[in-house]
C-alpha cells in the first residue's frame, strides 16, 4: 500500500482578538489529528460547519502552516478549495484559463494540447473569447472545474464542489472524479451531500471535537 497523505499529531491554533479588550487569545481548531490516506482511494471528510474541514484541507495544500505536527504529501496536488480563485472578470475565458492553469501548475504546452477538450467539457463553446463578467456563475464554475480536473493530478483536495451547477453537469463532474479515481488519483473531499459521498467514497473521516475519527460513509 502506498501512502498518499499522512498526518501526524497535527494541531492548528489561530490567534484571534477579543472584540472588547482587543487582547489576542488562542483558538484551537485542530488538536492531535492523525490519519493515513492510501494512494488511489477516495475519502470523504465530514463534520459540522466550523469543525475545521477547510483548515485541514488548507494545511494539506500548504496554504497555511500547522502549529505543530506535520503532514507528508506525496505527489502533485490540485487544490479545488474554491473553484475559480484568481479568475478576473475583465479578462476573457481563454486568458483566465491560461492564468488559472498556471496557478494549478499545468504547463502551458499541456494546456494548449488539452484546450479543446477543456472547452468542450465546460461547454463554453463560442464564449471562450468573451470577458468573464458576461459569464453566468455556472459557466465560470464549469470552466474552472474543467481546467483543474484535466490536469490528472496525484491528489485532489475538493471543498464542496460537487453540488454546484445543473444536474447534468453534476453527473459529468461525478463521472470525471470517478475516472480520475480509477486512474489512481487520491481524492479527499468535503461534501455535505451524503448521497454523493456514498457514490464516490470508499470511506470517510469525521472531524469532531477538533480531532479526526474514522466513520462509515
Amino acid at each position, binding site marked *: 500500500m502506498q501512502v498518499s497523505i499522512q498526518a501526524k499529531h497535527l494541531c492548528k491554533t*489561530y*490567534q484571534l482578538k477579543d472584540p472588547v479588550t482587543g487582547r489576542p487569545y488562542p483558538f484551537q481548531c485542530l488538536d492531535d489529528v492523525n490519519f493515513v490516506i492510501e494512494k488511489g482511494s477516495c475519502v470523504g471528510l465530514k463534520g459540522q460547519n466550523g469543525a475545521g474541514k477547510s483548515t485541514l484541507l*488548507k*494545511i*494539506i*495544500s*500548504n*496554504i*497555511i*502552516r*500547522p*502549529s*505543530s*505536527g*506535520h*503532514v*507528508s*504529501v*506525496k*505527489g*502533485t496536488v490540485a*487544490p479545488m*478549495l*474554491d473553484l475559480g*480563485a*484568481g479568475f*478576473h472578470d*475583465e*479578462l476573457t475565458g481563454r*486568458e483566465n484559463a*491560461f*492564468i488559472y492553469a*498556471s*496557478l*494549478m*501548475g499545468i*504547463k*502551458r504546452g499541456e494546456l494548449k494540447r488539452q484546450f479543446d477538450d477543456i472547452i468542450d467539457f465546460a461547454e463554453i463553446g463560442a464564449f471562450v473569447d468573451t470577458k468573464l463578467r458576461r459569464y453566468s456563475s455556472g459557466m465560470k464554475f464549469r470552466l474552472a472545474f474543467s481546467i483543474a480536473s484535466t490536469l490528472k493530478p*496525484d491528489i485532489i483536495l475538493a471543498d464542496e464542489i460537487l453540488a454546484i451547477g445543473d444536474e447534468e453537469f453534476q453527473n459529468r463532474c461525478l463521472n470525471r472524479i470517478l475516472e480520475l479515481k480509477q486512474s489512481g488519483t487520491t481524492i479527499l473531499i468535503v461534501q455535505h451531500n451524503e448521497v454523493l459521498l456514498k457514490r464516490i467514497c470508499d470511506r470517510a473521516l469525521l472531524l469532531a471535537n477538533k480531532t479526526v475519527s474514522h466513520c462509515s460513509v
Partner: protein
Amino acid sequence: MFRIISNKVNGLEELKRLPAYHQLFWALTWRNVRLQYQNPLMGFFTAVIAPLLMTTIFYVVLGNKVGEDFKYYFLYIYSGFIFWNVFGAGLARAHTSFLQNSDLVKKIYFPRFLLPLTYLAAKLVDFAIALILFTLLVVISELDLEWGRFIYFSLLSMVSLLLICSGVFLAFSAICVRFRGFQMVFPFVSQAMFFSAPIVYDTQLSITSEMVKALFWLNPLTGVLSFFRAGVFSAPLDPWAAMIHTLFAILIFVAGAIWFKIEDTHLVDRL
C-alpha cells in the same frame, strides 16, 4: 514529489521548488499588464503621456527658478518621473496586493513573495517604453551623450532600482496585511517619498545642514537617480558615494526580504 508540511520552514527545499513556479510568475505579471493595457489607449496614456504631462507641469512651474541650476531641466525631471513611475506607481498597486488577491492567496498555494513582485515586473513594461522615449528626447535635444557611459550607468541604476523596489514592495505588502490601517497612511507615505526624492529638484543642492542632507539622502530613489543622471548628463559621480548607494540598495533588499520571510509564516492566517 514529496513534501512535508510542518511549522518549520525548510528554506532550501522551497528554493529548490522555486523554478517550478516561473510560469505562474509570468502568468500573473501578464495579467497585470493585460489589465492595464486592456484599453490600449489608456495603457499608452499611463505609460507615456502621463509622465510627460507631469514633467511639463513641473517644467513650466519651476523652470525659471529651480531650472536655472540644470542645463537640460526637462530631461532632468523626465528621468525622475520614469523611475518614480516604477517605484511609486508600482508600490501603489503592490502594497495592497495580498488584500486585493486574498481570495486567490487563501485558496491556492504558491510562493507568496512572487505576488508583489509581479507588480514590479508589470511596471517594467512601462519603464521600457518610457526609456525608449527618453533616449529619443536625449538624441533630439542635442545633449552630448556618451553612449558607453549612458548604457553602463543605466544598467547600474536599473539593478539598484530592482533591488530597492523588490525590498520595499515585499515589506509594504507584508505590513499591509499585518496592519490594515497602513493603507490609510499610504498616500501620505507615497507623497513624502516623492517630494523627498530628487525627482523634480535636487534635494542635495539647496540644503546646507549636513544632517538634513543625510536625512534626505536616505530616500531610496536618491542613489538610483544619481546613477542614471551620472550616465545621461556626464556628471561626475563620487565612487565612494556610488559604493554606499549600492550597499544601501542591497541593504534595503535584504531587509525587505527578511521582513517578508518573517511575516510569510502567518500571512494567510492574518488575511
